[in-house]
C-alpha cells in the first residue's frame, strides 16, 4: 500500500471525529471513494462517535421553523416530474416509488429510534410512545398511500426488537439487536393466517443483528419469528420468539 494510502487509513479515526484539517479531509475522502473496506471501517468509527451523543429535547419553537423551511423548499419545485409531459411517465413512477421506499426506510428507522429511546416501563411514557408511534404509523401510511396501514412493535424473546408495518396485503418486517443464533440455527419468519395457521415467509439473515424483509401480496393478520434448525422448517418446531399480529 502506498504511503499516502496508509496515511489516509491512519487518519480514519480522526476523520470520524472531524479532527482533521481540510487537506486531510480531502485525502481521506479520496480513499473512501475507492475503498469499500475503508468505508466499512469509517462506519464503525462513526457509530462509536455517535455513542457520545446524549439526546436532548430541542426548544419547542424550532419544530415550526424547520417545518416552515421544508414546506418552502418543497413548494420551490420538489415535483420535478410535473413539467416533463407524459413521455417519461414510467420512469417517474419508478423514481417516485423508489423515493417513497427510501422515505419509508427512514421513517421506520426513525420509529425505531423513538421506540428505543422511551422506556416502556413507565406508564405515562408508554402512552407518549404509543402516541408517537401512532404518528409514525399515520405518516408511513400516508407515504404508502394506504390509510389502513398499522405499525406493530414488540420486544423479541432472547433479545432485540421487531416491528411490522402492515399495509393491506403487504408486511414490512424489520428487527434490530437480534443476537446471533449460531451456525446450526436460523431465524425463520412466519406469516400468521386469520385462522391462526402459519406459513413460512422465508429465513431471516440479520446483518449485525438487523434485518428487514418485505412480505408482499399475501393474506394474513401478521408475522411471527421462531428459531429453527439450519435450513428452516415446513412448520415451526419451536415456540415463536415474537408474534406481531393485529387483533
Amino acid at each position, binding site marked *: 500500500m502506498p504511503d499516502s494510502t496508509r496515511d489516509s487509513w491512519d*487518519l480514519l479515526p480522526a476523520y470520524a471525529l472531524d479532527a*482533521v484539517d481540510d487537506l486531510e479531509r480531502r485525502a481521506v475522502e479520496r480513499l473512501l471513494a475507492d475503498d469499500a473496506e475503508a468505508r466499512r471501517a469509517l462506519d464503525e468509527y462513526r457509530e462509536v462517535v455517535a455513542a457520545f451523543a446524549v439526546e436532548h429535547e*430541542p426548544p419547542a419553537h424550532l419544530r415550526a421553523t424547520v417545518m416552515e423551511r421544508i414546506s418552502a423548499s418543497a413548494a420551490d419545485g420538489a415535483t420535478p416530474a410535473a413539467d416533463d409531459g407524459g413521455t417519461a411517465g414510467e420512469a417517474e413512477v419508478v423514481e417516485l416509488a423508489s423515493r417513497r421506499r427510501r422515505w419509508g426506510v427512514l*421513517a421506520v428507522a426513525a420509529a425505531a429510534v423513538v421506540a428505543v429511546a422511551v422506556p416502556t416501563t413507565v406508564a405515562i411514557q408508554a402512552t407518549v410512545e404509543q402516541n*408517537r408511534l401512532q404518528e409514525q404509523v399515520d405518516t408511513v401510511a400516508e407515504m404508502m398511500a394506504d390509510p389502513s396501514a398499522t405499525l406493530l412493535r414488540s420486544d423479541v424473546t432472547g433479545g432485540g426488537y421487531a416491528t411490522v408495518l402492515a399495509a393491506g396485503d403487504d408486511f414490512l418486517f424489520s428487527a434490530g439487536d437480534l443476537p446471533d443464533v449460531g451456525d446450526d440455527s436460523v431465524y425463520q419468519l412466519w406469516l400468521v393466517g386469520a385462522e391462526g395457521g402459519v406459513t413460512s415467509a422465508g429465513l431471516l439473515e440479520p446483518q449485525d443483528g438487523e434485518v428487514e424483509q418485505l412480505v408482499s401480496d399475501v393474506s394474513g393478520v401478521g408475522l411471527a419469528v421462531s428459531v429453527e434448525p439450519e435450513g428452516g422448517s415446513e412448520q415451526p418446531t419451536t415456540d415463536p420468539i415474537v408474534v406481531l399480529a393485529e387483533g
Partner: protein
Amino acid sequence: MACVDGDPAAFGPVYDALAPVAYGTSLGVLRDPDHAAEVTQEVMVEVWQTAERFDPSRASARTWVATLARRRAVDRVRAEQARRDRDQRDVDSAIGGSSYDVVAEDVERRLEGAAVRRCLDSLTATQREAVVDAYYGGRTYREVAERLGAALPTVKSRIRDGLGRLRDCLGVARA
C-alpha cells in the same frame, strides 16, 4: 400526480424522533443553546433534503443524524475560532477557544446518559484525554497535540487506539 413522499407533513414524526439526537450532539460540542438550535435547524433541513442518501446498511438513522450534526457543530466552532483569531478584541465570545477547554467534571456531566460512558474506562488516561479533547473541543488532532504538548504521531495513535477500544467495548462491528 400526487407527490406523497414530498409532503412536508410526513416529516413531522421524523423530526420528533431525530431532532433530539441533532440537538444533543450540537449542544455537546457547542454548549450554547442558541448555536445548538441553529445547527439543529440546519441539520433537520438537511435530513429532509437528503433522506434519499440515508443508507440503513451503513448506519442507523441515529448515527446518520449524529454524524451530520457533529460535522456542522465542529464547522461552527472552527469558523468561530477563525473569526476570533481575526478579531482579538472579541474576547468574550460564547463559544470556541479557551472557553472550550475540557474540564474533567464537565465531561462527566456531559457524558451522563451517553452509551459510550461505561466504555471510557477501557481507555488509558492519555487515550481518553486525546479522544475527549477532540470530541468536546471540536479540535483537529494537530490542535490536540499542541494543547497537550505531545508529538503529532503520538496523538494520532492515541485517538486511533482509543476509538478502537471503544469500538470493541461497544461491540460495534459491521463485518
